[in-house]
């Protein structure tokens, strides 16, 4: 009977499903664990940056200091400041409470249990010292046998927010970080206007018009992605010098008004996915190419245009080489990237300020990325993948 056979199989079937599930959980857990460890290592530099940017110079040079921003713990008792140490109490280094200000004869009477204590040192001696418990100073002095110089400093969490205030002021410059921020945004926004207008026009031309040799032109456009920029640097620089534009923002903005391969490619990809029916309907209604672009195409490719704008914003924050060569003589016009780099050269001995500047330099693009994540991933999928 088939019925009995089925009955025989059933438990087996279930157990194998269960097994499979268990295995799935274990493998999933292991893979995720591995990815998590990798990710922690991947992001460790950010941890270093944030932590260091909140440290004192003193803590950075102290190798016994903790990784988190901290300051040597000190307490104030009756108007006096005392350093706090981690005091190990054990067989070889006993500690006990002084009674009546004098040493007790029998340490056992008031001795401390073994363990580590955070105590403030009040009297430093060679072989033994006196401490008080910062939380209970009234309990009296504690006598500890051992060399205080071997003790490690107790640290307390104390972020140095004033590093940010100091970095913001840009020591040695007559302007503040706000100027760099303004410059970066101004260059970025003007560039965005240029790249959005020009790339939309060109992508529209490439995707909707029959032009002889279009394939050749488009291939030429795309091949410029692989063009080494170094080969155009000198004549372009010489050209801008002739125009008297070196030391202005024009060399950083103007070229974006003439389209670039990445953005045209990706806008065109996006345009190709949009059916032509609406263009054709508009054309029959007597709309010209410009009207079709404005009223039909642009509303439909708005998400793509926003992606282009966002990528350009991030590009403007990243771009270093061109602002470096065109604005080296005009610090007050430089964007964040160049300003931060010159700061690095000036303040090699202040790691905490350098990390503060690094953070100020990356915070905006990273925030933009998190806020507009979808737009960014959409951009990648269309540029990188055959659709």
């Amino acid at each position, binding site marked *: 009977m088939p019925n009995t056979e089925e009955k025989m199989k059933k438990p087996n079937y279930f157990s194998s499903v269960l097994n499979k599930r268990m295995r799935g959980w274990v493998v999933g857990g292991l893979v995720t664990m591995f990815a998590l460890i990798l990710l922690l290592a991947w992001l460790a530099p950010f941890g270093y940056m944030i932590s260091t940017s909140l440290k004192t110079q003193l803590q950075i040079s102290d190798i016994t200091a903790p990784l988190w921003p901290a300051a040597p713990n000190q307490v104030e008792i009756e108007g006096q400041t005392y350093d706090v140490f981690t005091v190990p109490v054990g067989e070889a280094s006993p500690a006990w409470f002084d009674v009546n200000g004098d040493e007790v004869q029998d340490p056992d009477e008031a001795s401390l249990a073994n363990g580590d204590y955070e105590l403030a040192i009040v009297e430093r001696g060679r072989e033994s010292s006196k401490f008080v418990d910062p939380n209970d100073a009234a309990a009296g002095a504690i006598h500890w046998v051992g060399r205080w110089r071997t003790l490690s400093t107790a640290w307390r969490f104390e972020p140095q927010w004033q590093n940010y205030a100091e970095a913001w002021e840009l020591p040695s410059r007559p302007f503040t970080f706000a100027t760099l921020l303004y410059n970066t945004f101004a260059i970025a926004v003007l560039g965005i206007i240029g790249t959005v207008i020009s790339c939309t026009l060109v992508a529209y031309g490439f995707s909707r018009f029959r032009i002889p040799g279009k394939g050749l032109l488009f291939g030429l456009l795309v091949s410029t992605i692989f063009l080494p920029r170094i080969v155009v640097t000198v004549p372009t620089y010489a050209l801008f010098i002739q125009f008297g534009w070196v030391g202005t923002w024009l060399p950083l903005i103007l070229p974006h008004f003439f*389209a670039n391969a990445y953005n045209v490619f990706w806008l065109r990809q996006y345009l190709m996915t949009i059916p032509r029916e609406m263009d054709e309907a508009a054309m029959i209604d007597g709309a010209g190419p410009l009207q079709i672009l404005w009223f039909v195409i642009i509303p439909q490719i708005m998400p793509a245009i926003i992606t282009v704008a966002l990528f350009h914003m991030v590009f403007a924050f990243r771009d270093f080489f061109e602002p470096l060569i065109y604005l080296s003589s005009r610090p007050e016009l430089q964007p964040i990237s160049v300003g931060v780099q010159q700061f690095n050269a000036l303040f090699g001995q202040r790691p905490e300020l350098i990390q503060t500047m690094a953070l100020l330099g990356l915070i905006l*693009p990273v925030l933009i990325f998190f806020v507009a994540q979808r737009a960014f991933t959409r951009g990648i999928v269309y540029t990188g993948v055959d659709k």
Partner: protein
Amino acid sequence: MAIGERILATFKRSPKPPKSPLQRHETRWGLIFLAPWIFGFLVFILLPTLATLVFSFTDYSILHVSETRFIGLDNYTRMLSDPIVGQSLMRTLTFFVMAFPLAIFIPIGLAALLNSEHLRFRRFFTTFFYMPYMVPLVSAVLIWGGFLSPTGGWMNRLLETIGIQGPDWLRSTTWVYWSLLIVGIWGNGNAIVTTLAGMEGVPRELYEAAKMEGAGSFATFRHVTLPMISPIIFYNLTLASVGLFQYFLEPYVLFAQAGDPGGSTLFFPMYLFQNFFQFQEMAYGAALAWVLFLIILAFTAVWFALRKFWVYEAERE
């Protein structure tokens, strides 16, 4: 269609369309829309590229523009007797040989991990592995400069916890390349994410077919995933090759343009840059730039030639 294929498509002729008034009208408008790019291409790409070649036969310098003379091949013969040219070119080649395989395989490995069906929270992981790409170059270099520092940096302290004595990452002429590689890989999120997008685009049916054939996960990866994403690997590989030959900004920022330690990061493009903007030897720099351009072009040509052996091409409509 992937970007790489576009370039090859360039060389294939399109059939000549018949001409009608309507067609001419369309062409005219099309060219108007293309005009910004055509102008930009001529002024900012084609002319400068040719001008670099012309400059390389002169003694042009912004210090004495009006007295520029043609000096024939002098700039090129000068290269032969300039020891820094050979040395810096060797450094660039060495760095290329070290970095190129990593620039290809690490993004594939990470993308494979992020694409794994076993991985939970994939979006979360993808976002954070991609994030360093958003960090501007200067900030990235400053962070790593501190992170790798033997005094106060975290790298060696982390290595210590697993019992490894870390090297002097930035001041040892052998380790400095590895430091630069780490920084480069970290910021290469774009390659990871494009590769991942490619993997996600592989049709499900192919995986199911492979499963039916009894292929294991490694065989599936090797014979299904890799061929399907080969156009993207090709694109990233070509870009990496072009980028690595022009590589110098990271060490430029890290060591305040000095080529430290001991000149080991004075790469060819940095020497070129110095000639342009520090020594005001613009014409000599142009000659160096043209040589570098030819090297990059030669490598790119090789990648395109080797393409047919391993890059999978989808049928065209």
